[in-house]
């Protein structure tokens, strides 16, 4: 197959949630000697972009995006292993669900989508104490973004604790803080001193890129 054809198949298999078939076509792409980075950007990320559009239109939901991302990651791992050098990123984020909350689906979607924007993401997981966010930022000077989510009204205050902790450590100005989650609002984000609230994962991706551009 020609390169364009293989790239289209990579994109289609992500979009169609085919996490097994995509490995075969990825291997074919690698064996043909085509550029792995191009395979990621023009194939996988393109497929995820199409899936995101379907999500925005209310055609795809969380289950569909998870299956798309599984297909994307299955292929991405193979392509990354085939890369001669290390991948370049446009920024670095740390992400997690705040303490007391174990709902991490939204956080995982945001992680997937901002990774597709070329941002390196360190995932602290779910039920993350404020001190872990703060320690990670303190110990990693290259972190640009702190992304926090909460699905419960009762755990939202954990986000404020992180921001206060960053201020107390004198490192708040080093990073931009993004918050999200079903009960979170723009008003709440403003009140706790976050830089950005986004209502869904698609907005989070474009918002993260905008914040990085502001920082440059």
């Amino acid at each position: 197959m020609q390169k364009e054809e293989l790239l289209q198949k990579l994109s289609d298999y992500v979009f169609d949630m085919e996490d097994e078939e995509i490995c075969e076509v990825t291997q074919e792409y690698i064996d043909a000697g085509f550029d792995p980075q191009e395979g990621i950007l023009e194939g996988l990320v393109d497929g995820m972009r199409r899936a995101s559009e379907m999500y925005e239109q209310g055609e795809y939901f969380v289950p569909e995006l998870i299956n798309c991302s599984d297909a994307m990651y299955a292929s991405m791992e193979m392509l990354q292993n085939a890369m001669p050098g290390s991948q370049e990123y446009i920024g670095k984020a740390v992400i997690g669900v705040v303490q007391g909350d174990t709902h991490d689906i939204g956080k995982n979607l945001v992680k997937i989508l901002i990774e597709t924007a070329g941002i390196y993401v360190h995932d602290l997981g779910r039920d993350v104490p404020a001190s872990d966010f703060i320690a990670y930022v303190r110990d990693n000077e290259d972190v640009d973004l702190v992304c926090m989510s909460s699905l419960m009204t009762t755990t939202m205050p954990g986000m404020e604790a992180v921001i206060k902790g960053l201020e107390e450590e004198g490192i708040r100005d080093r990073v931009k803080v993004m918050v999200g989650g079903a009960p979170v609002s723009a008003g709440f984000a403003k009140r706790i001193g976050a830089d950005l609230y986004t209502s869904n994962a698609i907005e989070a991706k474009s918002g993260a890129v905008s914040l990085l551009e502001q920082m440059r």
Partner: protein
Amino acid sequence: MMNKHEAVRAILDGQGADRIPVMMNIGSLSFVRYGYDMFEVMTNPEKFVDAICGTQEELGFDGLLAGLMVAQLGDVAGHLPRPDGEISGDGQDTIRSVEDLEKLKPFDLDACMNLQGILANIALMKERAPEEPLYVIILPPAGEALNAMGARFAFKNMVKRPELFRAVAEYFEDMQYQLSKCLWEAGVDFLWFPEPNFGGACISRRAYEKCISESNIRFFNRLRNEGIRFVLHTCGPYDDRFDLVLKESAYAWHISDTQTKKVKEEYGDKISLMGNIPSVRIMLEASEQEVYDFAYQECMDAAYDGRFILSGDCDLPPQTPDENIRAAVRAARDAEKVLFGE
């Protein structure tokens, strides 16, 4: 005027009450207010009741949360490992196949510490506040299935292997039924079933129909047949699937992320409603007057036929100002006078 138990019963039975109960989900708010952590209240009925009843007495709303039935999955699956190999303890994220269901321990009502704690709460609350309606939060079987499979794996398989999700939900049906029956027989006024993961923020209408509907219809029909009253909390956007939820034979819907007036107009003749003051945007962030105005309008939109319980659309955040909660109560009392007379 009906007493509070009679009013709740009349509302759930679709007959209409002559008052508007104000029932706020204030679990975390109460525990924080009384300085208790979750472990303390879940293991000490006196502290649980102290916090819930004390908050209710101070703020003047109606009804009492008698417990959160959340730990039964740990009883049957806590010994199983998660995918990373660690023993789960809480049973979440442990079921990957139908074969895994055979590894579960049999559920034993008498050995369920969570249940025994709630039964103790109920007994204490009946003594301290006999006039207040009681309810317990408990997941439907599909909610237990989602926890047992882990959200990511469960969501994935709603597309790839819906039959697996349905099988897991069916497995947990008996456990949830036994618990529901036991709680009902202990004297709660209703059970409150939340469905936060099955609305339009997470899954499609098609996935709801394919994976959730059948289980809910079967399970809730069993409760109906026993005369067990329950409220279904459609947590998240459900506008595109209320017609499906209607088939699940709930006594009332506790709605969120929608317009009460619209739902009332479309479904009000078929189902009683509970809700729908935004817990963050209004209850937490708005002024006392704004809360009053919003709550009053909710009552006027939905309580004219006596089939409405005023509530937040979700748990109230712990920092919700007292005056805002009191404003919601005041709004309901004022609306009652207009709708039902002094």
